[in-house]
Structure formats: C-alpha cells, structure tokens
C-alpha cells in the first residue's frame, strides 16, 4: 500500500516536472503584464477577460470549433471510405493510388501553401469557412492508419453483412465504422488536434476577423504590437491557455480509446 502510494506520488512529481513549462505558462497567464516584467507578484483575471472580450476569443473559439470539427468529420469520412476500399478490394491501380495517398505524408505543408492560396483565390473561396476547411480535409495519414486497422477486422464481418443483404456503403457504415470506432475516435482526436493547432494556413487564407481561428488570434496577439512594441506575454499565455483547454478536454474524453484505437493500426 505505502509502496503504491509512493509510486503514485513519484509519478505525480515526475509528471509535474515534465509539465512545468506548461504549468508555468498557465501561471503566467494570471499575472499582470507589469508584474511579469518587473518580476513581482500581482495576480489578475484580466488577461482572460481581455482576450475573450477585447480580442474576440469567444468568436475565435467558435470558429476553431466549427473549422476543426468539420475538418475532422469530413476528413474522417473520406479517409474511412478510402481506407475501406484500400483494405478490402484489390483493384487495378489500387496500389498506386494508395502509394499516392501515403506519399502525402512526406509533403511539408509549406510546399502547398502558396499554390493553394492561389487556387482558392481563383475560385473565390478565401475568407470563407470553405476556404479554411477544404484544403485540410484530405488526410493521407488517417487513410493509411485506418486502412491498417480495418485490415485487422475479420473480413467475415463484411461478408456476413453482404450475405444479410447489405450494400458496400451499408457494410461500411453499419459494420466497419462501429467496429473500428476506437481507431476512428483516436484518429479523430489526432485530426482535430492538428487542425486546431494549424496556424499557417488560416493565417494566409483568412483576413476577415470574423473568421479567425484561435491560433491566428493567438499569433496576432503575439505579434500585436507594431514593429517597435513589446509583447504582452501574460495576455498571450492566457490566450494560449484558452487554446489548450478544449483539446485537453477532448483528450481526456477519448484517452480510454486512444491506446486501443492505435493498437491494431500502428502495429500491423
């Protein structure tokens, strides 16, 4: 019992040490700017009020949720469909197409930044939710990962459903998706997090403040002061804490599924 408790305490201590930078940034977010610069102690909630009120973080939060949410849903849908096809059919060109999907993993997003910007400008989708969402939807990693996972699901399940009279889409939706739920959930979390933290693309694609996501809000706050101004770190940290919270909640919610979801896919 005591050994157990000591282990728990040790683990907690190690965790705290590991997290000290994050914890420090949270602590910082409750300080006044002046106190921060002068090294005194002066606590306030003002940074949160300011970032939410004056700097529109409530709106950004909603945008981030809309954008990340839709990207996650649409991305998962497409990736799952493709993963299903790659896992269950051998078709002419299938290997090549799959390679094309996997190869997207090797492509730094910066390569596609300028051309995508030009493309979306041409069709007039900059400064729209669609412009934020569309380029982020295709997720080669998710497709790759889910394909591996689906390959681990006994094919007999599909076949049973076909015998029961299902169409391929019904098999996908009624059998594969529920069975692969842990994997899809954890992939969803990954997509959501990476989209949530995505900031170069929204920075470029959106100039309308009403469409800012949290990360641009954060970056803007960070670069708020003109060339010669200085950064209000406590405010930035308050905003940054705000951007962490929802993802953290999401993580805690699906943590249970996470390992299980990864198990089959990652390992095969």
């Amino acid at each position: 019992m005591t050994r157990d408790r000591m282990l728990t305490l040790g683990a907690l201590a190690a965790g705290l040490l590991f997290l000290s930078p994050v914890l420090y940034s949270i602590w910082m977010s409750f300080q006044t700017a002046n106190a921060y610069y002068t090294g005194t102690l002066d606590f306030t909630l003002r940074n949160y009020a300011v970032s939410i009120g004056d700097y529109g973080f409530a709106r950004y939060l909603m945008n981030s949720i809309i954008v990340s949410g839709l990207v996650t849903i649409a991305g998962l849908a497409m990736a799952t469909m493709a993963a299903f096809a790659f896992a269950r059919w051998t078709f002419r060109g299938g290997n090549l197409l799959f390679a094309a999907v996997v190869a997207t993993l090797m492509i730094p997003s910066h390569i596609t930044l300028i051309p995508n910007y030009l493309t979306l400008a041409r069709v007039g989708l900059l400064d729209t939710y669609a412009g934020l969402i569309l380029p982020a939807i295709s997720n080669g990693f998710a497709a790759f990962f889910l394909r591996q996972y689906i390959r681990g699901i006994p094919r007999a399940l599909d076949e049973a459903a076909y015998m029961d009279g299902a169409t391929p889409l019904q098999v996908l939706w009624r059998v594969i998706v529920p069975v692969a739920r842990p994997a899809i959930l954890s992939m969803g979390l990954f997509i959501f997090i990476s989209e949530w933290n995505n900031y170069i693309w929204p920075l470029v694609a959106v100039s309308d403040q009403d469409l800012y996501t949290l990360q641009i809000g954060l970056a803007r706050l960070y670069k708020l002061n003109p060339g010669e101004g200085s950064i209000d770190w406590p405010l930035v940290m308050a905003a940054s804490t705000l951007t962490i919270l929802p993802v953290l909640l999401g993580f805690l919610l699906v943590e249970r599924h996470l390992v299980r979801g990864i198990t089959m896919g990652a390992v095969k």
Partner: protein
Amino acid sequence: QTDTTTVEFWHSFGGSSGAALDRIIENFEAAHPDIDIEAEHVGNYNDIVARLQAAIPANRAPDAVIMEVTRYGLFADRGVLLDLTDKVAADPLSDDLFDFAREVGVFEGKNYIVPFNSSTPVLYYNADILDRAGFDEEPPLETYDDLLTVAQQVQEELGDEGIRGISAPGQFARWGLIMANDSDLIDSTTGEILIDAPNTVEAYEWMADLVHEHDVASPDNVTDEDTGKEDFLAGRSAIMMNSTGNYGESKEALGDALKVRPMPCNKVCATPIGGAGIGIIASAEARVQDAAYDFISFAASPESNAIWFSETGYMPINRHTADQQLAKDALADKPGIDVAINQLDVARGRPRPPVVTWMRATEYDMWQAMALGQREVEETLQDFAEQTRREEQRQN
C-alpha cells in the same frame, strides 16, 4: 447610401496605438460621411508585407496600406503602389509636412507613401540604476566610449543582481549607431553599398564587443531582440537604444526613472528615420483611390497627427502639430518625448531600393554571428557586402 466609398486599409497598430488610430478614423468618417474606412490590423510590418505579397496575385489587395519606410521600394518598383506625386503636389498639406516626412515617401523621384508614424531611435536610460551604480550626476552619453564606460561601471556594480550595462542594440538602433559613426549600410542618396566601409566595420566591432568582448549586453538580446526591451522595461538593463515609439510603454514601466537622450554622436550626429507611411494600391478604382488619399491627407493633418503623437510618442510629421493643445500638453507632461523631435535636424531617411528587404533580412544572421563571436567582424561584413551586391544585381 449607395454612394458610400469603402476604403480597405491594412495597418499594423494594436493596443493603445490602435485605439489612437481608431480615433483618427472616426474623426475622418465624421468629416467624410460618404467614405467608409474599413481598417484591419494585419500584424506587424513583416506580416503586412507578406500578406500584401500574397494578396496581389490573388487580386485581394486592400486599397490603402501601411508600409515600413525602407520596404515599400519593392512594391513601388513593381508598380503595386500608386504614384502619389501629383496628388501630393496638389495638396496644400505638402507644404506643412516636415522635409524629412516628404522625403521619406519618395522612391526614385516619385512619391509613393505619405508618412503616418515616424520615429527615430533615441537613447533611453534608467536613472535609478545609474544612481545605484554610483553616478551622482548624469554621465556623458555622446560617444561609443562614453556608453561603454557607463555600461561597464553598471555591470561591475550591479552585475551580481543580474543587471546588465546595456541592452544590445536592435536593428534600428544598429543602423543609427552606424550612421553616428559617419557611415551607413547603403548610401541613402547614391545607393552605394557601404556594408564593408571602414566606419561601418568599426561600428559593428564596437557593437559586437558589447556582447562578445565586454559582456555588458546579454546574448539573449542578440538572438531575440525583443528581450533587449523587456530587460530594460524590467529594470534589468541600464541603457536601451530603441525607437521613440517605445516612449509610452517605457514611461509606464519605469516612471520618473526613465530618461531619454538623443542617440550618441560618435563621429557625427546622424540618425535614421523609421516608421511607416500610407500608400495606395495602384489597381484600386480611381474613386476609391481618391477617397483613400483624402484619408491619408487627413491622417497627416495637425489635428490627427497631434492625437497620434501624444498617444504614442511617434514624432510629429506636420509642422503645425506642435501648435495643437494635445501636443502641447504632451510636451509639458512627458519629459523626453521631445527628444526625437529635437534630433530631427540630424535625422535622415534611409535608402529603399528593393534589395533593402533582402539586406535587412540577412543582417540579423550576420549580426548574430558577429555579436556571438562566431565570425570575425571584418570578414563577415565583406562577405555580407559581397552577397548584397550580388543580390542587387540579380534583382535588376
């Protein structure tokens, strides 16, 4: 109304500066009910340049935009900015502008921007620190040696408390210190590249030694220039050379301990003019361009400029600004806010050929290498000059 003309305007001001700008815009819209200024705070100067560059091929450029004074040349050169020469000439305002303010907007003989926020570097110091370091009265702060002496004494006395003698100069201040050594990076009139001129080398040697040799400036300031200001604001550094635009913030942090002095004059007295002006995009509709110009002109008026000056510490650009009550109050209440103005005689605009953008971006790396003692100053600058000349050729 259907006749309302909307001017999309990108700028770089947030916080209290942004609020001051908003007031000016409000006043303008009140005076011009048919014009709607749609202002957007895009980010810092670099962000604006980046956004603009991306916006142009996408046909999404704004109508008017704030541009840093050394970096609009590229856009002027490529025909992105509207030539304002005729408009300025026809505007009675032009006579009221200080010479420097008119000059700063001219590129290759044509006027492309009208200054809005102008600044020079000034020298700030923390009187409390100097006091504690044993300076009973204000020491001379004219030459390189003067500065070094003070910085060394501070560091000797107070180094144990984690106080540095000086904040390593940022790029704007470096440029100023080079000018004070009777040189420049690029000659503002001839466009000659002076990066490897002996006086420039000497200036960089002195600056680099502050960090590398004498250890009176923090290496942190070299890799992250913002920390130079943070240190000063936090009372961890005795001297800072930085834009006059920092006055408001510094005053707030240090109160009466803040003293402002002109930039040192090592060989000559000279200082660069920084800041930004507003330009108009050439592709905008004529009607919109006119409306935009109206706004530019209004922003440069004594009334507007006084608001701006008193709130931010940026220099007046209009000769009549000082007559405004707001400005008078500021000069009376805020000792040191006038230093930049007084320094104007020796201030001059910097060159703005397209290569400057490249040169400024590269200078950071070079400075780091020198200040951190990784490369010999002279050799570095020769290499830098070499590269800059090559780049200039490539761009033409």
